[in-house]
């Protein structure tokens, strides 16, 4: 049970406090309700580029990192298709430094041209390092474009292409900031060796006078129901043939999401999972095989991905995966197999909750989804799933017309 208190400042900033006095540290986590899905299709990669710019100086403070480091703190940030999150960990004595820094950059950035110029280059190098200069690095670019025709999950967080990042203009930066980085679109979580009273005072003092801004109302193009099977072939200079196949699954808050999450575990979670045992160990069609999803807020993709053992034919590999999936649709899984997945989930949640950083991040995430207390009811949602749920959901999503396959051939 993770306890917390919640209050809202007059400008709409939601503040959550999680006290834990067993640590000398404090975590200040700010989540902004904006991700790559909120981007203009012709200016993709912007939410992430913007995350970099948030370290390029704010209106009263030329450098974000230096004062934080001087106070013994560390920080980082990440952007996903759904949200942007900033967090710092600092000795609790010096927590006010984090309030000072975070509030100033919420008040306004400095909008330095130099920072934009440099970070454009840095992000381009990040793009190259992770997606261009690695074998199979473009798999998700291609898969997203195949699986989504309308929804902005069509592009990756890093952006559709280098040129979008290269062409980012300072006016775009300003507009983006004042649209999304307002108190009313943010959640502040403070965790660790702090008190609620202290956080109330500090929040009011540092964030209280920031103009509220306009609540961002999201209206994204919805992905139409897929009605035909999609297959794309790719030929590239890679050493091994690879296969990646996806099926549309439910959005984060739907029951189907939890069932889909368990299905990925049944199929690909660990050495006793079905796909690993059958296709890597017994048939030896794949040298590695994973089954996963990204935990997307909007409807995501359940994914199977693997590299083929040399000499194995692509059609045999595809058929072998289909066979395992048919099995899931036609036959109820045994109770102990379901229990195994539930036990794993219980364990994963316990390990995740070990650090205050991770607890703060989860509280912000669930608050963004609607209610931070979902963090405490999440396990029960998994516990309630039955073998019939697994079978019915498998029958629902594992339809050829709901599938997207990328057949990635080595030249």
């Amino acid at each position, binding site marked *: 049970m993770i306890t917390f208190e919640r209050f809202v400042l007059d400008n709409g900033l939601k503040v959550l406090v999680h006290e834990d006095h*067993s640590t*000398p*540290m404090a975590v200040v986590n700010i989540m902004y309700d904006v991700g790559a899905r909120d981007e203009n299709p012709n200016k993709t990669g912007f939410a992430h580029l913007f995350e970099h710019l948030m370290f390029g100086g704010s209106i*009263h403070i030329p450098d974000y*990192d*230096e004062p934080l*480091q*001087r*106070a*013994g*703190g*560390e920080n980082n940030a990440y952007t996903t298709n759904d949200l942007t999150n900033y967090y710092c960990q600092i*000795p609790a*004595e*010096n927590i*006010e*430094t984090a*309030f000072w820094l975070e*509030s100033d950059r919420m*008040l306004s950035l400095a909008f330095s041209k130099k920072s934009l*110029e*440099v*970070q454009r*280059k*840095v992000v381009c*190098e*990040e793009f*190259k*390092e992770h997606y*261009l*200069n690695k074998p199979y690095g473009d798999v998700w670019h291609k898969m997203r474009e195949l699986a989504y025709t309308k929804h902005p999950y069509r592009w990756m967080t890093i952006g559709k292409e280098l040129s979008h990042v290269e062409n980012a203009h300072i006016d775009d930066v300003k507009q983006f900031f004042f649209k999304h980085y307002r108190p009313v679109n943010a959640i502040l979580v403070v965790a660790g*060796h702090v008190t609620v009273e202290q956080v109330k*005072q500090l929040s*009011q*003092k*540092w964030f*209280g*006078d920031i103009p509220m801004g306009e609540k961002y109302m999201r209206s994204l193009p919805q992905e139409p129901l897929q009605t035909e099977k999609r297959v794309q072939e790719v030929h590239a200079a*890679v050493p*091994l043939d690879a296969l990646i196949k996806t099926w549309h699954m439910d959005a984060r808050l739907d029951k189907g999401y939890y069932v889909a999450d368990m299905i990925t575990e049944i199929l690909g*979670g*660990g*050495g*006793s999972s079905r796909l690993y045992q059958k296709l*890597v160990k017994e048939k030896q069609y794949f*040298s*590695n095989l994973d089954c996963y999803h990204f935990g997307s807020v909007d409807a995501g993709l359940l994914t199977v991905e693997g*590299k083929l*053992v040399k000499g194995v034919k692509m059609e045999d590999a595809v058929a072998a995966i289909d066979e395992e999936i048919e099995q899931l649709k036609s036959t109820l899984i045994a109770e*102990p197999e379901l229990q*195994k997945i539930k*036990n*794993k989930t*219980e*364990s994963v949640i*316990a*390990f995740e*909750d*070990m650090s*205050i950083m991770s607890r703060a991040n989860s509280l912000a995430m669930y608050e963004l989804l609607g209610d931070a207390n979902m963090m405490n009811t999440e396990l029960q949602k998994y516990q309630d799933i039955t073998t019939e749920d697994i079978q019915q959901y498998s029958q629902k999503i594992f339809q050829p017309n709901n599938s997207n396959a990328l057949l990635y051939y080595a030249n």
Partner: protein
Amino acid sequence: MQTECSVEYKEDMINRTVAPPITDAVAFDLRLKPCDRYTLDNQVPVYAINAGAQEVVMIEWVFYAGNWYESKNIIAGTTNFLLKNGTQQRNAYSINEYFEFYGAYLNRSCYNETATITLHCLNKHVAELLPVVAELLTESIFPEQELAIYKQNQKQRLEVNLKKCDFVSNRLIDEYVYGFHHPYGKYTSTLDYDAVERTELLAFFDQFYKHGKCMVFAAGKLPDNIDQQLNRVFGSLPLNRTTLPAVNYSLNPSAEKKYRIINDKEGVQGAIRIAQPFFNRHHPDFPKVQVLNNIFGGFFGSRLMSNIREDKGYTYGIHSYLQNHIHHSAWMISTEAGRDVCEATIVEVYKEMESLRKEPVEQEELDLVKNYMIGSLLGDLDGPFQIIGRWKTYILNGLDEQYFYNSIDTIRKVSAEELQTLAQQHLNREKFYELVVV
């Protein structure tokens, strides 16, 4: 706590250009929580940190079974990898199923001197899991079929990795620094995998695991009788009875210092590695060099990062560090930079070395780095797994908590002049190997 902000401070009086007062992290009284120590009946030492709010534990068995002790390439790593792949009683699938049913994770890793098997689980399941760990450590049989699958899949994995410039550069720089016949410098080819024989694994297992030198590290919210449980299951195994073979390797660093390699002619980035052989933690200067390294390239605010990423935008990240080996170390600078700016990046790295040699670090910068280092040490000690990790490093390196307190003392006291002297001794271009792999 002195953090309560003053009540009379009015909102409209906030001066945002002035930083709130801070307590210098160097003033913190850092303590390394002592670990419980006991030995099992067979003299296997146990180190334990009982702490934490979550009902989880981590137990790690460390064996002196690393590359250092193999007489043929990849035998140590293969033995370690296949520990989970079959015993006299269970096949690989049932071993995995057993641990996974309890929501437990059993990982294994092979390093240079040591190799480990690590259990993460909820504390309520420890009693069911320990006997099966013991079974793996005494009854593993390394089935031919499992070995064959392992070889096939590892070779494929290697083939993919060899397309990556960072992977290739990490192998080569170690070879230049230590020599290919040193455990720190050697690497694996597909032919090495082909040459592995099951009998070699059985022999290595028998000597270095079943009758090997073992120590146990445990942390988390441990069951009250964890000592008895460990003793009951592991205390009568034939461990720690024979002495380890004395194995010595000589360093054979490469004569040539500068390398440019094209691994992928279409590559858009180059992996840059700049390194020199360096002393290990036992050298009295080591903690001071850690401070110097932080200033140079050890954290986000370092000079390499500020210049090459935050000013020039040549790279997504650049770091320097001292390699974490027991016998010898190397001082390494590592980055992936745009192909057309690799040479410019290297020029800047040497410029930063030069500036550390020529000018003493300004007090303000030094204070910042000191505070940052102490603050991050405080963060690193947060939680039982982190604390036991630090103890493990000390114990495997033949150090004790005095090293921890000495390091803190060094961070507090080291002067700009001392750091400049160290820079003059060590940060010289001609001492470094230099590699770019595109």
